[in-house]
């Protein structure tokens, strides 16, 4: 079972992003997803900068994949998407069916990754994206072990399966920017306030319970999805790649702890205990167990 590092979902300052990816070169991950997937207005790194980061990571032996935006609305978004599809060097993760369509048409024969927002819940739909050229698919965050097992039973040949194993869950996308809304700003003149929230902006109920994290147009769980206790079942359900989503603190340690558990060098409950100092919220794994995502099964 391989480990991947998902795309950075937050807007960090340029130097912080560069520092982070210099550290990634030494992390025990096999695959690194790069690029801005949340908001087209974010620009600390431009497309060419991401290509440079990718080149360095490829030089360090990582499989590099460029992730497309989850929400493609405007002609400018499509232009960015077409450039990504035709980058000519790295594989692409399609996070919108329009991206999968363009990849099949403009880069035929080049394998791509079918992202979690394609909503693949059954083997018939998986076969459709396989025919388009996908060689790996990422399960939707809300997919349970049992639902995945049923897909794997009839999985088309030559597909790898990837599942999120760590990170705040991307739960929803909107046209509206909720970080800008918090500051009474419009999206078009947002002053890029999300740069001040490297793990998102926490939303609590009026009883003080952590509920959500606002990350621009993306709404995340406040809790951190964490399948470290479930890795044996994850492997047994035919997951080839476990994804770690970067959080502001301790991503390198979290990756190392996951790798140790995968290699049977460390007990999962000990790993979870050590991760707790880095996690921006409590852990949850309910989706994997077919329950409300917010729940934690096992300790």
């Amino acid at each position: 079972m391989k480990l991947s590092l998902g795309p950075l979902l937050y807007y960090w300052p340029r130097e912080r992003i560069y520092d982070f990816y210099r550290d990634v070169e030494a992390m025990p991950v096999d695959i690194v997803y790069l690029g801005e997937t949340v908001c087209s207005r974010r620009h600390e790194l431009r497309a060419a900068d991401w290509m440079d980061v990718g080149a360095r990571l490829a030089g360090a032996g990582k499989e590099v994949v460029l992730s497309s935006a989850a929400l493609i609305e405007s002609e400018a978004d499509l232009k960015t998407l077409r450039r990504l599809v035709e980058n000519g060097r790295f594989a692409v993760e399609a996070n919108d069916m329009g991206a999968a369509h363009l990849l099949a048409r403009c880069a035929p024969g080049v394998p791509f990754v079918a992202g979690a927002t394609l909503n693949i819940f059954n083997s018939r739909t998986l076969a459709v994206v396989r025919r388009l050229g996908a060689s790996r698919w990422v399960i939707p965050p809300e997919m349970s072990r049992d639902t995945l097992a049923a897909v794997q039973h009839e999985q088309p040949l030559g597909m790898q399966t990837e599942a999120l194993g760590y990170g705040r869950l991307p739960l929803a996308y909107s046209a509206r920017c909720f970080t800008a809304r918090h500051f009474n700003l419009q999206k078009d003149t947002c002053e890029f306030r999300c740069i001040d929230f490297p793990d998102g902006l926490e939303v609590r109920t009026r009883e003080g319970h952590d509920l959500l994290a606002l990350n621009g147009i993306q709404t995340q769980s406040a809790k951190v999805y964490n399948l470290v206790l479930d890795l044996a079942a994850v492997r047994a359900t035919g997951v080839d790649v476990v994804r770690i989503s970067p959080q502001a603190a301790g991503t390198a340690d979290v990756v190392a702890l996951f790798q140790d558990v995968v290699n049977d060098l460390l007990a999962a409950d000990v790993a979870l205990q050590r991760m707790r100092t880095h996690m921006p919220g409590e852990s949850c794994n309910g989706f994997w167990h077919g329950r409300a995502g917010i729940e934690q099964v096992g300790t």
Partner: protein
Amino acid sequence: MAHGLDVTDKILELVCPAGGLPSLKAAVDHGADCVYAGFKDETNARNFTGLNFDDASLREGIRYAHARRVKVLLALNTYPTSANWARWTRAVDRAADFGADAIILADAGLMEYAAAAHPRLRLHLSVQASATNYEAINFYHEHFGIQRAVLPRVLSLAQVESVVANTPVEIEAFGFGGLCVMVEGRCALSAYVTGDGPNCTGACSPGKAVRWEQTPHGMETRVNGVLVDRFAEAERSGYPTLCKGRYDVAGQTYYAIEEPASLNALELLPELVRIGIKAIKIEGRQRSPAYVAQVTKIWRQAIDSCLRDRDAFRVAPACMAELNKVSEGQTHTLGAYNRPWK
């Protein structure tokens, strides 16, 4: 069997919700060109107790509508899993057998099934497919022959115009009703808190998870125990969905995501006609037959007036007031159609 009604006979169709037979009849009687409906299970995104159609009521509904030259569209717009796949294909087969004029789908695998099993049955792309751009819409057209797409409620009017100009697929836009602030099909908030969500079980904030409680702090609404809102005495409490709660963000308590308000694009009708929108969708299968009758009647008059003379079209204040009365939160917004909202 595809029904024989000509589906391209109107410049702009009014598509109205039918949560049950009384609503279907109300929509038909008050001027809908199409009604949309679902079966009583998780194959559609309004899977609520007491709503939707069994086989007998659907047959009767289709008979009633077709006798008055109104089309019936069946929403089968949730995502089947490999474990429950057969329930969705059976629903497709039943819709075809009963003579539905089109089925509204979100899942690509199910579209493939429908296109192969019922080649004469019209396919519409559901808003739940999250197709916000013409490349995505054209994908479903080229692979499965979809003839119409319903746009998620996230695009500005200019973006809608660009989609219409770049696809052979008819475009249906939301005109009125409850407003999903999230991209439909890309929202797992309800699943996160309750285990049930629109994508797989067809229910956002399912009734069994919802509680209203009168407390010393005021009326509280909860979803699976999570406090969504608390209302002062003079405030009206609405049905709690997670995106429309009042929460604490960095010490401020406010509607962190969206106020309860309905989308109302009535004043944009001339623009929607000008850019080539083919159908206007009214949201609200969970609402009463009286709501359906009222909203259908007002939009029927408005569309007829707009098609008679686009330049002279004005929204009557009385119509706006009537629509506000049935709006969530008794207020309305142009939503994403109006760029500053975004």
